[in-house]
């Protein structure tokens, strides 16, 4: 049975780790075995970082970074510049950008969305995570958006921030329904 793997490109402090974790957790609810982990280094906020997700109905035993991703998520288009290896992957790629798809011709399978803008509008912070999760779920198909909603609900209920649950649902839906 196939194992699905994702590489997320982000910047320190931007939430690439959380993004990976949400996808993984949602996958777990769906019955997947999961793995989510970022690259760790001494670099600080703003510096480029990668996160990885694996989803599989079989036990995941390996312990090393994803080398052949099935999906790519780019949290900030600038990272395409600094991470030249990205263009060699042929898989679907989700790009957070103000620009349109036509600007990313090298990527045949690109899904371009201004997730930051959507997030800023809906939850008042430039945190494109949930929107990008929505996009991913739509493309991936094998995880229900409800799972993510469940996670959002638990998370923010725990944190005593119930008022942000709905806006986050909206982010997810916006992403999910974008393509």
């Amino acid at each position, binding site marked *: 049975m196939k194992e699905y793997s994702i590489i997320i490109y982000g*910047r320190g402090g931007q939430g690439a780790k959380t993004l990976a974790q949400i996808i993984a957790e949602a996958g777990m609810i769906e019955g997947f075995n999961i793995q989510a982990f970022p690259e760790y280094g001494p670099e600080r*906020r*703003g510096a480029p970082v990668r996160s990885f997700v694996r989803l599989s109905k079989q036990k995941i035993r390996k312990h090393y970074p994803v080398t052949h991703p099935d999906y790519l998520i780019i949290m900030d288009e600038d990272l395409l*510049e*600094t991470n030249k290896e990205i263009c060699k992957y042929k898989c679907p790629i989700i790009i957070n950008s103000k620009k349109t798809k036509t600007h990313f011709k090298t990527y045949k399978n690109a899904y371009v969305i201004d997730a930051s803008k959507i997030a800023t509008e809906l939850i008042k912070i430039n945190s494109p995570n949930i929107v990008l999760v929505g996009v991913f779920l739509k493309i991936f198909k094998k995880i229900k958006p409800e799972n993510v909603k469940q996670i959002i609900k638990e998370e923010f209920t725990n944190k005593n921030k119930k008022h942000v649950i709905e806006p986050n649902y909206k982010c997810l839906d916006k992403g999910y329904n974008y393509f």
Partner: protein
Amino acid sequence: MKEYKEIGGVLYSKKTPVKKTGSWRYLKPAWNESKCIHCMLCYPKCPENAITLKKGKIIKRGKVNYDFCKGCGICAEICPVKCIKMVEDK
């Protein structure tokens, strides 16, 4: 015996490469030179030492070195005449 040169992970400052941190930036400081009074408050308070000094007898601030500026916004915040604006770095 083997000749040891750079043993023990020792680095020679004069030979080491330089890491550019400009790509970390989301916003960048735009400096309105004409408004600047060259008070030099911003210069030593730039965490990255990314603000340059102009050559010459009179001490004057110069442009920002965007290879290193991380866009923290401190300079804009502390400039007494508000001649720095943080703008989108696209």
